[in-house]
């Protein structure tokens, strides 16, 4: 029952595989996460006329987080379209375009504004294919800058990915590295169904190796970042890095944590997780979304109902966001989501049997 998990390092050139003939393996360089996304967008637009970008201030402004940068200079305003501040309507426009031959990539300026477009995303994009008995498909990509840590307070700092992962018809990914940011985006663009990509704002400036050219990271596959025998730590997005940092420190204490980057929330790589838990017998889930009903709830429940249950030597822990909106004050803001010391303490206590 175990399944494909990639091994470290995260950015192996051999991850690059031929997707559609245009792909080629090539040297990896260091790019930031934002640059990696921009490169993916450029590659896709270069290769396929149908691909275009929509969003607020993604043109001359370059996007609120400078992800689209200078793409408008290169591809023009027809393919890098600034929309009015009309999230619901613009999402509907993207759905209509996707239904009839185009491949829109929609940037929400902040993931929080998805609250205005849930109708189009959830009732239309996610369900149209099913409701019409397969007569259509909706090849739509949406990008959501998410998460806290920028001092932008409660309405600009949410991590809402769990909502989307609750919705059949959507695919939901949360790349944690520049490599995955590019590869998942290219996979999403090639996908015939709506794919929601949650990008952490604090990751945009993070650097990592990114191969040139076209490659894809398969949607729905978790990634093994660090093998370990004592406990499985499954994390998403920025929490992958905090969990890896925690694992380094724990190693000094003799605790070997296996760190898994979930990468995809729907489909969910349940088998990979179960296989890891069968090896380590302990599970800690780390995520930034509100703890209650955040992705960790599903991960925990998935293991608790699987045959990995019998291998568990300890309760399944979750470290998620606090049960409050994200506060403005920087100290409160930090306290509202898992930080490395909290991960270390939780894992240590679990492995040492102190609860």
């Amino acid at each position, binding site marked *: 029952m175990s399944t494909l998990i990639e091994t470290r390092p995260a950015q192996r050139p051999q991850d690059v595989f031929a997707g559609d003939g245009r792909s080629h393996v090539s040297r990896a360089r260091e790019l930031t996460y934002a640059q990696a996304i921009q490169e993916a967008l450029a590659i896709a637009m270069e290769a396929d006329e149908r691909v275009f970008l929509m969003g607020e201030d993604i043109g001359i402004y370059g996007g609120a987080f400078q992800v689209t940068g200078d793409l408008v200079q290169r591809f023009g305003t027809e393919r890098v379209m600034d929309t009015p501040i009309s999230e619901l*309507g613009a999402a509907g*426009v993207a759905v*209509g375009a996707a*239904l009839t031959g*185009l491949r829109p990539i929609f940037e929400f300026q902040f993931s929080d504004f998805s609250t205005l477009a849930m109708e*189009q995303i959830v009732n239309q994009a996610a369900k149209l294919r099913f409701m019409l008995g397969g*007569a*259509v498909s909706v090849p739509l990509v949406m990008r959501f800058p998410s998460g806290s840590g920028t001092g932008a307070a409660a309405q600009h700092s949410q991590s809402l990915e769990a909502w989307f992962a609750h919705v059949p018809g959507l695919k939901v990914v949360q790349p944690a590295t520049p490599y995955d940011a590019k590869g998942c985006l290219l996979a999403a663009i090639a996908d015939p169904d709506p794919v929601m990509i949650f990008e952490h704002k604090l990751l945009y400036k993070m650097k990592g190796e990114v191969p040139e050219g076209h490659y894809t990271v398969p949607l729905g596959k978790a990634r093994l970042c660090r093998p370990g025998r004592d406990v499985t730590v499954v994390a998403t997005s920025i929490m992958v890095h905090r969990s890896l940092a925690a694992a380094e420190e724990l190693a000094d204490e003799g605790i070997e944590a296996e760190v898994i980057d979930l990468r995809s929330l729907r489909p969910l790589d349940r088998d990979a997780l179960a296989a890891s838990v069968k090896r380590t017998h302990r599970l800690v889930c780390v995520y930034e979304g509100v703890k209650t009903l955040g992705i960790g709830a599903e991960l925990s429940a998935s293991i608790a109902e699987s045959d990995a249950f019998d291998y568990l030597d300890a309760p399944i822990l979750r470290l998620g966001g606090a049960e409050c909106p994200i506060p403005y004050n920087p100290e409160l803001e930090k306290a509202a989501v898992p930080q490395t010391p909290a991960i270390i303490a939780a894992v240590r206590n679990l492995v040492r049997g102190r609860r």
Partner: protein
Amino acid sequence: MAVQEMKLREKSAPARVRVVVEEAAPPMMPVIYRRLSAESLRQALRKMLLIRRFEESAEDAYMRGLVHGTMHLSIGQEASAVGICAALDPTDYMTSTHRGHGHCIAKGAQVSRMFAEFFGKEDGYCRGRGGSMHIADVSTGNLGANGIVGGGIPIAVGVALSMKRQKRSSVVVSFFGDGANNEGAFHEALNMASIWKLPVIFVCENNGYGMSTSSDRSTAVKDVAQRASAYAMAGRIVDGNDFAEVAQAAFDAVERARQGGGPSLIESKTYRIRGHSRSDRNRYRTKEEIEAWLARDPIGAFERQLLRLGFITTADIDAIRADVEREIEEAIAFAKASPAPSIEELTRYVYSD
């Protein structure tokens, strides 16, 4: 009813609003009929009759328990659906509403597959997954009814963007009701269609009510067409029960759209004779109001007009009615005989895979 067109000032022009009211009664022969062959007029009548009989038969099937859920019938609104679609090519697109049976037929769908859908069968347009509220026929450009009031409007704008970007000459019609015009989606969609000059025709079928709530109680302006001015768009009111008037407005708007002139808003004033849905107890309308509208039945009026203008004979009408009857019967038989979906395939069509 007089055609009323409000041309709104161009974006940079000085504030000035011109209101053109053509007061003259329609001429004996509507101008638009010069563009339509006698055969196409007969076909239009046939479609209106087909819609009427489809709705009545669907209602009947519902009573017999063949149809699950609820249904929103468009009896009384046939001229609006057929008049608009008369101006469309098969390659043109449409988004429709919860009250979408008429639009679907008008755009060219087969009633056999529509009944099959209502009966929840594999031969249904949605393989039994969608039902009345999601009836669609992608092969004729109907992207579907929609359970969400206003949900189809921005989608239509996206389709229009797609056509323009792909340099395809297709235009898009977005049907919606008077109730829908108070949704934010309406506002956002019309604004985007206008700034991007997209080939979309917004058709508000104003039947006076959103469910039980009259336009008076819910909409700040008397005519939805007035709102076109907020988008620097042409807004036009037509008698939705008059095929010729609807068709004229549709041809004009489609022509404008195809020539790159951008979007238009047509307000088609009409009435739904039946209740809102199957559970409507009709507490919010008077019998007199309904009867007054029954007297303005669009099908009867169209028949009389075609007879008067010599496009058709009573024998023709009888033949059409009989033909429609046969088509409906065969369609129902087809639908009944169609297989039900397999429970094994419950989660099929969620993803493309």
